[in-house]
């Protein structure tokens, strides 16, 4: 028997928490002498008020879906993968190498090949920490942190010394061939006669991200492997009793996790920048942790949390672009949203539960 109706748990509680986060944010904005109302307006208008804003919001959402799913999948096996940042960076390298060195005539061929490249590189970057955890007992939290630094160094080296076109100042690769240009959502909308989100970076990867959510859902809750991942994550002795092999599951889970993080590269590297930049990931790997935890490691939750962060990112960007509010305010708002919806959710849930319980008891007697 549950303490309160499911809708109250999954909808009402987060909404109230979100409201609290926004209220505190408003106080912060007031404290720095700006108008909260204007800020909110700018954010909502800028992120959701036009197809243009949506185009950016969904672009960021796509990034966060991939890194969020990466953290979530690992979490089900009780593995805390903080390495999304490095894995996504390496995924970018994979995409760049594939697109620069393979003759790919059309995006429809380039996309799957790039996805494989991204996933392989991301997965490979997760494999070593996974192997060390499974075989040598090195804590995956440390090793993935270290691998983030090592990835940054590797990318730095590769971009400056190998991929950078001669004479360029920019530590970035050459532009990918025109043929590999991914259809933007704008183009796709235009093809069916709708004028939507012109000049926005959201592209077909968005649908790949949605497909990834579905696949992860199937994987975790509908497949045998997912069953074994969850079993191992909840209890290792029980998993062994059931004939599940921990080493194998740890390796496979981290490969999938790293692969998902790496896949982010098809959105930001292939879809948006169309070349590999030094700082292409821009912290999305870390946001993925928050997204996964807030989304309760469920693909639907991850998607919603990614959307929320996409909104904050774009709305916040707009805020910083068009008002005098410093851009760091967005980080504060993000922090408050994470705090209230993710960590302080019981502050809202516990009184609610009591409320519903007393309502029910009154109903009973």
């Amino acid at each position, binding site marked *: 028997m549950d303490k309160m109706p499911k809708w109250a748990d999954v909808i009402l509680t987060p909404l109230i928490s979100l409201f609290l986060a926004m209220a505190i944010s408003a106080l*912060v904005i007031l*404290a*720095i*002498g700006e108008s909260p109302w204007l800020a909110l307006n700018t954010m909502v208008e800028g992120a959701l008020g036009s197809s243009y804003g949506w185009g950016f919001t969904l672009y960021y959402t796509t990034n966060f879906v991939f890194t969020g799913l990466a953290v979530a999948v690992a979490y089900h096996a009780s593995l*805390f993968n903080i390495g999304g940042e490095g894995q996504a960076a390496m995924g970018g390298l994979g995409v760049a190498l594939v697109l620069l060195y393979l003759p790919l005539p059309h995006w429809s061929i380039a996309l799957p090949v790039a996805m494989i490249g991204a996933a392989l590189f991301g997965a490979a970057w997760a494999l*070593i920490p996974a192997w*060390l955890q499974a075989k*040598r*007992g*090195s*804590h995956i*939290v*440390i*090793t993935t*942190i*270290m*691998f983030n*630094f*090592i990835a*940054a*160094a*590797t990318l*730095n*080296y590769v971009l*400056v*010394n190998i991929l950078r076109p001669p004479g360029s100042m920019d530590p970035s690769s050459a532009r990918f061939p025109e043929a590999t240009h991914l259809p933007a959502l704008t183009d796709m909308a235009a093809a069916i006669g709708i004028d939507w989100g012109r000049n926005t970076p959201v592209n077909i990867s968005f649908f790949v991200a949605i497909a990834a959510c579905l696949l992860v859902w199937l994987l975790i809750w509908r497949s045998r492997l997912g069953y074994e991942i969850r079993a191992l994550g909840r209890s290792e002795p029980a998993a062994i009793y059931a004939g599940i092999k921990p080493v194998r599951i740890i390796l496979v889970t981290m490969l999938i996790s790293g692969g998902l993080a790496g896949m982010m590269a098809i959105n930001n590297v292939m879809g948006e920048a169309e070349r590999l930049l030094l700082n292409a990931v821009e912290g999305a790997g*870390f946001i993925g*942790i*928050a997204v996964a*935890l*807030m989304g309760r490691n469920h693909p639907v939750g991850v998607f919603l949390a990614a959307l929320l962060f996409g909104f904050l990112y774009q709305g916040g960007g707009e805020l910083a672009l068009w008002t005098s509010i*410093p851009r*760091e*305010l*967005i*980080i*504060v*708002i*993000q*922090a*408050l949203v*994470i*705090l209230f919806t*993710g*960590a*302080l*959710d*019981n*502050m809202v849930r*516990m009184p609610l539960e009591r409320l519903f319980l007393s309502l029910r008891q009154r109903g009973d007697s």
Partner: protein
Amino acid sequence: MDFATAIQILDSAVRLMTPLLLACLAGLYSERSGVFDIGLEGKMLMAAFTSAAVAFVTGSPWLGLLAGIAGSMALSLIHGLASITFMGNQLISGVAINFLASGMTVLLGQKIFGLGGRTPSLTGGGRFGEITLPFADSLRNVPFIGPIYADLISGHTILVYVAFLCVPLTWWVLFRTRFGLRLRAVGENPASVDTAGVSVTRLRFAAIAICGILCGLAGAYLATGLSAGFVKEMTAGRGFIALAALIFAKWRPWNALFATFLFGLLEAIANRYPNLEIGPITIPSMFMNALPYILTVIILAGFVGRAIPPRAGGEPYVKER
């Protein structure tokens, strides 16, 4: 490498390890009590800002230090509220605290000083000065011992000595006092403490308060000891390295000293040899920069066994569901 170089590298290692050591011990208290803390970075950053801001305004590093502790404690309190009182997810809370510090420091800094989040540089008395230990200068010429005493042991800011003293102190508190016994117990099995009639909540709050103090020291050392003022994001990932050191140290104070020293040393060596030439190949600077991280992985894989965290770590103590 000659002796003088070795001394210089060790001296540099001591400076580099101090913030790591303080943060690592901070994490040790918190995690030993069963509260995981990936928000060390944020607390240090906040402390660095508040200490620099107050030291600049008042001209006193000591007031700055107090302010640093206060800033870090405020975040500790939030972490405690989330993870102890409201039994929330400790990892999420830590992530949020890191974001909060990263945003708030710049926001406040910009509001107060208008330098884009920087504080003005601290001059003269606004910083912690280097302490010359007694006889340091007269002993310098004694062979071997002299340079070690005068150049390595002497000549650091007070916070370095505090940090090193914190190691035996922590060991003593943890293993020789009632508080330490209860603290370790509450991280292993909170129910055992609860049924012994001791408040789990109070113990855990005490632990994270100590964590706040030590992070405050770490942040103040960064901003008012090592450098002269606050620059946004100046912790530059040191909180995460401290966390890695804590796991590496298996949550033990003397090991923490060793682990953070290793990190400091590796970084000092990489600083000293930015272009290591091994035979015909020269290792590019990028990889020398990443060397501490690469070596950490190798050491972890090769020599350090499985690290078993405090058993109740990361889980809120839920009595009734």
